[in-house]
């Protein structure tokens, strides 16, 4: 958030015998660049290349141009599934934006209260699920929500609200919401931590000055703190977006790759898995799968570009 260190180095002090310098840059960049190229850039480009091919039954591949994308978007058997997964993914993302980031912001505000005791304990507890394996999270929540021996129906019955319970994970109307909320529960610690760190960065002078000027707690939040943490909220949003459109594991752990009932929990990740690896009797198609993966890449790219050019450039950054 500050440029002080960079600008304090006088540029003219550079020794003219800096020809070695370029080797150093190369040496220091090389490990990261090599690893990143090998494990990220190359697979990405190769995926895009693969999406332009089609395989026949002997496994031989031939170049078909954009045929796979054409099929994906126009053949009702493919486009129906694709758009269903896409819209489910949007809902999945919207729930995370509103609930996860909303609660994350609220928790961060509570944690930054000056007179809070045991703050670090809460912080650790709330962050804990994030560090657990998705498989464990899925298993625990399925057990808790299990209509036969779960704790959720018994608790509701004990409170006299037994009629409110439903097999939430199994109904078309509630399954996606339930899975989303489980994911929110797991990951709420991340926005909380990021926003909490941003809140701590705000100097007390600003808050004191606002209070002296007669601002109440609400005004202090709305007119002083919120504008100052907006860049962090932007980062949190884009992280949520990328994570949600890449999501797969929780849905796969809870609902399987067929993402039932009636594909109501199917998101792009599970759709990609079925297409690429196949499912039961469905034989996987690496080329069509690559097309789906490329479509996901484009969707994420568009989202991130909208953020970079539409939002981030308008944000004002403040250095204290």
């Amino acid at each position, binding site marked *: 958030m500050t440029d002080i260190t960079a600008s304090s180095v006088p540029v003219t002090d550079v020794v003219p015998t800096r020809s070695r310098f370029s080797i150093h840059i190369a040496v220091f960049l090389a490990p990261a660049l090599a690893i990143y190229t090998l494990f990220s850039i190359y697979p990405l480009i190769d995926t895009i290349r693969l999406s332009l091919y089609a395989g026949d039954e002997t496994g031989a591949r031939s170049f078909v141009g954009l045929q796979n994308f054409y099929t994906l978007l126009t053949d009702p058997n493919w486009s129906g599934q694709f758009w269903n997964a896409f819209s489910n993914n949007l809902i999945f993302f919207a729930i995370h934006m509103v609930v996860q980031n909303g609660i994350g912001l609220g928790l961060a505000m509570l944690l930054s209260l000056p007179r809070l005791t045991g703050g670090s304990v809460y912080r650790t507890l709330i962050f804990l699920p994030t560090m657990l394996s998705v498989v464990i999270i899925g298993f625990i929540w399925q057990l808790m929500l299990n*209509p*036969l021996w779960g704790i959720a*129906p018994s608790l509701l019955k004990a409170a006299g609200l037994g009629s409110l319970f439903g097999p939430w994970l199994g109904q078309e109307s509630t399954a996606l919401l339930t899975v989303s909320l489980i994911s929110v529960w797991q990951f709420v610690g991340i926005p909380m931590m990021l926003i909490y760190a941003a809140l701590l960065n705000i100097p007390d002078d600003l808050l004191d000055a606002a209070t002296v000027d007669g601002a109440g707690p609400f005004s202090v939040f709305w007119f002083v703190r919120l504008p100052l943490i907006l860049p962090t909220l932007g980062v949190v949003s884009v992280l949520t977006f990328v994570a949600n459109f890449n999501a797969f594991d929780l849905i796969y752990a809870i609902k*399987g790759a*067929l993402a039932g*009932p009636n594909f109501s929990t199917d998101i792009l990740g599970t759709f990609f898995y079925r297409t690429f*690896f196949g499912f039961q*009797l469905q*034989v996987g198609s690496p080329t069509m799968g690559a097309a789906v993966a490329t479509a996901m890449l484009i969707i994420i790219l568009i989202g991130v570009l909208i953020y970079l050019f539409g939002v981030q450039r308008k944000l004002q950054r403040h250095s204290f």
Partner: protein
Amino acid sequence: MKTLHSKAFRRRARQLLATASVVAAALAFANTASAQTLTIESWRNDDADVWNTKIIPAFNKKHPNIKVQFKADPPTEYNAALNARLAGGTAGDLITCRPFDASLDLFKKGSLVSVNDVKGLENFSDVAKSAWSTDDGKTTFCMPMASVIHGFVYNKEIFDELKLTPPKTVAEFHAVLDKIKADGKYTPIAMGTADQWEAATMGLQNIGVNYWKGEEGRKALIEGKQKFTDKPYVDAFKELASWAPYMGDGYKAQKYPDTQNLFTLGRAAIYPAGSWDVPIFRKQADFEFDAFAPPVVNAGDKCYISDHTDIAIGINAKSQNMDAAKTFLSWVASPEFAEIYANELPGFFPLSKAKVEVKDPVAAKFVGWRGTCESSIRNSYQILSRGTPNLENELWNVSAQVMNGAMKPEEAAKKAQDGLASWYEPQKK
């Protein structure tokens, strides 16, 4: 300064090279040492124990020179993991074959070899081989191992307590269900729709054969002479829909392990089963249980059962131990293997013509239906699941929806038919 750096660099490079060559040598050594080791790829991780303690030792008594290693993935990940390993050239010598297209696909891609010349293949009937043969039936690429049979397992103690007898017809079946429900103590049918395949496999394919007359209906679908919208198929969906009121609370979120537990804890009376459940129940249930065949529509009707060719074993085309692998396959075709397999894993029934005595009484009952009823395989497996949308996936989806009450039986039939007709020529008319 520069020279010093480069010297150090060269020294490093030499060290690195030395390490690399040592590692390479070690790997090469490991390779030669395991020349006679066969690795089996399988999805039956539940059976690893039986393979390691019974089947492989029995094989080694006859062929002590060939070491066999059993390596299993979880069933849902097997296809994906196997394909990845075959593509990467790291798959085992012996490959457990899924029935029909998944394996046919591997054969066409050149990952499996023909087993026509392997001794012992003559021990199997054409029906047994059909799941692992090319469409013209000329080439077989996996040695058949076992089939699974569907039916209903029931809790004998509950039946005795409520004075019920195993039903033979659909009407009797519903009368039994009504009585259990009226009593109120037990869940009549242990079944859930959350995993979807339960509804399709234990539900539709289990009872459906009695409606579409087994092989007759299955072949008619392939030839395009019958459609899913025909009466037998709609009736099967209707029967499925009628189970909903008899299933446990929240069956929509009930998964397969929940279903098994519901039954083995003695809380449910009837369990639509696959015969592979028998060994699991043997271990977990502390009450007596028995089985009855899928009820027929009218008393005196001919009965059909789903006797599904499920598991076989083939040879990786890239195997370095082709001869050893063929020796193992011939042994799999022998009556000795059939005997061990049938009794160590009751519920998996050998496909070979050899007479094998099944000792588990419930498993024996399942296999006994082969004598009284006509056998058929699941209708979505051969040819019909080759296109998009995939028929098997569609049947999972619509069967679960019918049981959830989210779809009418007629709508389910129409959806399956429309999907099939969209790509399968004989059904397009």
